[in-house]
């Protein structure tokens, strides 16, 4: 076992941290600037192979990137994680040579922003129950239906959209399609007003007799659910990294706050310092769980249990850390005066998307019970 980051990863970590601290802003609007800066450094295609215009870096580096960016601006972290894990990788795994050639270099360079449209009003955790339909029409498909809570909706250039060719087939009817922004029949609703992650756009996405050519079907007919499932582990590890970044932001802010108080002669009581100690121990544990999941994912081995553990442990921590740190430092609605309220509101989303933390527990329990004899 080797529990330290290699020299290479330490270097990357320092590079990402410097980038996040010096170049990422945490303003109010959709972070176009942040994305362009990240794109210039190749960060929008970091784990994508060089063959497709990416940096060819490994999954651990990717996790370090999401962690560092989310520590400064969680919304930018979300957008990059979605763009990479579920916006780009479906093409890598399931795209035809033509599809890859057409889209991957643009995605890797950040000329196109990727998004993922699976969730619907009536199908959240139960993703197989989706109702958007894809009917055969002239060498292609006609899509009808509506998607909900689509990250980067209205801002993205390429959507991976899931629809069913026959609802009676259940999950075996689900098929994935590549839909470019601007085609007729694709309508993004207005951005949801959310409690946090306000800079990231989250919209409804309507398909109204949207025609998709067969050449833009991703994978085979009926393969869509499998495609969605195969992305889950990577996506969850990315959100775990976002949880890490947010938890660190809260804990580091609070540590600095208490140190400043001590410097001005106000001694930190045990009721505060012990809370901080517990959070710090959990943060270290979360870091190990997330990095380990990333290393296993990189090795190509199955990592569902590890990814789920990492995701829910790190994001539960992000939520708890923000809440407890507000207890220690006080509260201000203004991010500039005190960023903890922002971390608090951002953290909540990480417990919900890419599989709620309840779904993660179902995965972990299932994996555990599989290995235990009654």
């Amino acid at each position, binding site marked *: 076992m080797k529990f330290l980051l290699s020299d290479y*990863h330490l270097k990357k970590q320092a590079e990402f941290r410097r980038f996040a601290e010096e170049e990422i802003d945490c303003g109010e609007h959709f972070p176009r600037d942040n994305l362009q800066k990240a794109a210039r450094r190749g960060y929008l295609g970091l784990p994508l192979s060089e063959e497709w215009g990416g940096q060819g870096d490994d999954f651990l580096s990717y996790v370090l990137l999401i962690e560092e960016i989310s520590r400064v601006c969680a919304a930018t972290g979300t957008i990059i994680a979605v763009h990479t894990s579920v916006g780009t990788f479906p093409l890598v795994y399931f795209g035809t040579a033509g599809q890859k050639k057409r889209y991957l270099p643009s995605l890797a360079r950040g000329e196109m922003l990727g998004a993922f449209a699976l969730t619907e009003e009536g199908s959240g955790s139960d993703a197989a129950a989706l109702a958007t339909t894809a009917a055969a029409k002239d060498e292609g498909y006609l899509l009808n239906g509506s998607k909900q809570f689509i990250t980067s909706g209205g801002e993205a250039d390429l959507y991976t959209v899931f629809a069913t060719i026959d609802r009676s087939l259940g999950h075996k009817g689900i098929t994935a399609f590549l839909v470019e922004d601007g085609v007729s029949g694709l309508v993004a609703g207005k951005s949801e007003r959310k409690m946090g992650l306000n800079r990231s756009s989250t919209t409804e996405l309507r398909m109204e007799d949207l025609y998709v050519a067969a050449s833009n079907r991703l994978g085979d007919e009926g393969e869509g659910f499998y495609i969605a499932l195969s992305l889950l582990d990577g996506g969850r590890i990315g959100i775990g990294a976002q949880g890490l970044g947010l938890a660190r932001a809260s804990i580091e802010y609070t540590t600095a706050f208490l140190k400043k108080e001590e410097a001005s002669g106000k001694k930190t009581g045990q009721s505060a310092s012990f809370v901080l*100690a*517990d959070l710090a121990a959990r943060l270290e544990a979360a870091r190990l769980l997330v990095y380990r999941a990333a290393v296993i994912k990189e090795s190509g081995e199955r990592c569902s249990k590890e990814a789920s553990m990492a995701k829910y442990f790190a994001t539960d921590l992000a939520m708890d850390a923000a809440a407890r740190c507000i207890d220690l430092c006080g509260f201000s609605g203004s991010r500039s005066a005190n960023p903890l309220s922002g971390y608090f509101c951002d953290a909540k989303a990480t417990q919900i998307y890419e599989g709620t933390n309840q779904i993660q527990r*179902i995965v972990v329990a299932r994996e*555990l019970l599989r290995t235990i004899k009654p």
Partner: protein
Amino acid sequence: MKFELTEEQEMTRKMVRDFAEKELKPGAEERDDREEFSRDLFDKMGELGLTGIPWPEEYGGGECDFISYVIAVEELSRVDASAGTTLSAHISLAGWPLYKYGSEEQKKKYLEPLALGEKLGAYALTEDTAGTDAANQRTTAVLDGDSYVLNGSKTFISNAGDAETYIVFAVTDQEKKAKGVSAFIVEKDTPGFTFGKKERKMGLRSSPTLELIFENCRVPKENLLGSEGQGFKIAMSTLDGGRNGIAAQAVGIAQGAMEEAAAYAKSREQFGQPIANFQAISFMLADMATRIEASRLLTYQAAYLENEGLPYGKASAMAKLFASETAMEVTTNAVQIFGGYGYTREYPVERFMRDAKITQIYEGTSEVQRLVISRHLLA
């Protein structure tokens, strides 16, 4: 980063698990019931090479790393936490200070028989008025000719009575407080060294815990460990590593309890189906699995840092804190999953729960770990 165990570490796990399943498990309940320590089992650990697992071959050790050591403690504790205490006190608390601070002669004379399992070791720091405030030592050691004369008593000493080699802390200079404490190697049967009452405990009942009494006990001058006044530093640095052992013990207890609870949840039927089908149960099991995995990673990380010669005080405090809190929660919930049966002595989970409690207390309470961690953070 690499999270896979090496071949040597995997072999250690397999060997210790086999031993624990075959030799420890069958009598664990009975030993707990009778509050009986088994020297025979310790001897068998010696034959397997567990008693000197991290020490160099020249001192009779197995020359393995500290991760292999914590794996051994974890695997023993998964079945019988008392055996985990025996080994971790023997290695971390008695062997470690000898290895780290002992002279060549002391290592040959005392570390080697410990490593070979010919002798059992113990560590005597705590007194009735010096618990968390360990610097408040009252046992005294006065140099008189070629020996130190020890007077005082020690409480809650693991392995006491059965151990042959004791690391004992005593004050050699009252004025200097913590810097006036020194460490001594004291052999069993030294005149003036006797045992007080054996504690009756809620858990770890097959690991003996006794009082030590020193009445004009003469210890040869050459049995001073390190230099005069170095004792408190020896005591504290020993505990840093000891915490890895207790963290590993906590991981093992929690793992054992979780496996029992998961197996029970799959076989116990209520409302016409296994209770594992109910999320109230399966989510408890998921949280157990995740927290145990997190504890294990923290524990191995601390051991890894020790191997690499890097600072590990904060890491071992985090591991010990998180793992012991996890063990308490997991074992309590394991009893919950078993329901009324879990509360009976028919099933081992109540023993796991009783055994888990001490991991939050000894070798630094959870509160002390939080103090250590917060000092690192706020320094």
